[in-house]
């Protein structure tokens, strides 16, 4: 499966899950900021991706959980070096270049872009 094919299918998934227009789903679009996703939509998206690509997405793999509540990983509203390191390790599919300049947890949602999902699915379908 080519990246373009994956992108098209991811687009279809997001259009259905978030009721957005096709032209809004661009690689750089953030799920929460640009496409209006809420927390429950992330679960919906996981279910739909599993079905569309016939893959299994283990809990926390695409969208990591149990990060924000851990004081070792978050201090004063920012990820600690350890937190950032762990997140990068767990999310090789995300682009951290901007976020790591200022790892404010309020900006963490910006890591979840359409391209993040495409990269993740690519790693699954080509594995």
């Amino acid at each position, binding site marked *: 499966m080519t990246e373009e094919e994956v992108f098209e299918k991811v687009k279809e998934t997001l259009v259905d899950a978030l009721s957005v227009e096709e032209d809004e789903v661009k690689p750089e679009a953030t799920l929460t900021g640009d496409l209006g996703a809420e927390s*429950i939509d992330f*679960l*919906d998206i996981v*279910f739909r991706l599993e079905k569309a690509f016939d893959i299994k997405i283990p*809990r926390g793999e695409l969208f990591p959980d149990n990060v924000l509540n851990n004081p070792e990983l978050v201090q004063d509203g920012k990820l600690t070096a350890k937190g950032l390191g762990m997140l990068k390790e767990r999310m090789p599919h995300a682009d951290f270049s901007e976020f790591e300049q200022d790892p404010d947890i309020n900006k963490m949602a910006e890591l979840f872009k359409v391209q993040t999902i495409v990269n993740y699915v690519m790693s699954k379908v080509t594995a």
Partner: protein
Amino acid sequence: MRWIWIDRFVEFEPGKRATAVKNVSLAEEHLHDHWAAFPIMPASLMIEGMAQTAGILVGQARDFQEKVILAKITRAELEEIVTPGDQISYHAEIEAISPQAASTRGIVRKNGREIGRIDLIFSHIDQNLAGVEFPQENFVFTGQFERLLAPFLERGDG
């Protein structure tokens, strides 16, 4: 009293599918307000009926250990009105279930004929809002829901 919008289960296959029926009656007070001159079953309450059918199915699949909360109405299409004297049936199937959530697909029928589709997503809230404290007791599944399901569950006392 609790907000129960299904009368009886007529099919219950654990972890897979369930069908519940509701008989709509002019004795129900809400129909007189919706509307006095032309009483019809509110579509919102039909979504609730499906949510109860599907929610009990999802809850039973985890032995009622999770607090199952309706989180998203993925789709709700109802093509006909339902009036007093009609029987509605809600057929729900589990599409996917994970530690955090479940998605269901549902078909609504009126007197046996398909009139709509309602797909839902439920959250297992204890798994999703880690750190937020909820009462330990399961406030979602109470005695009334258990009684609805009783004819379909095996009894330990033989």
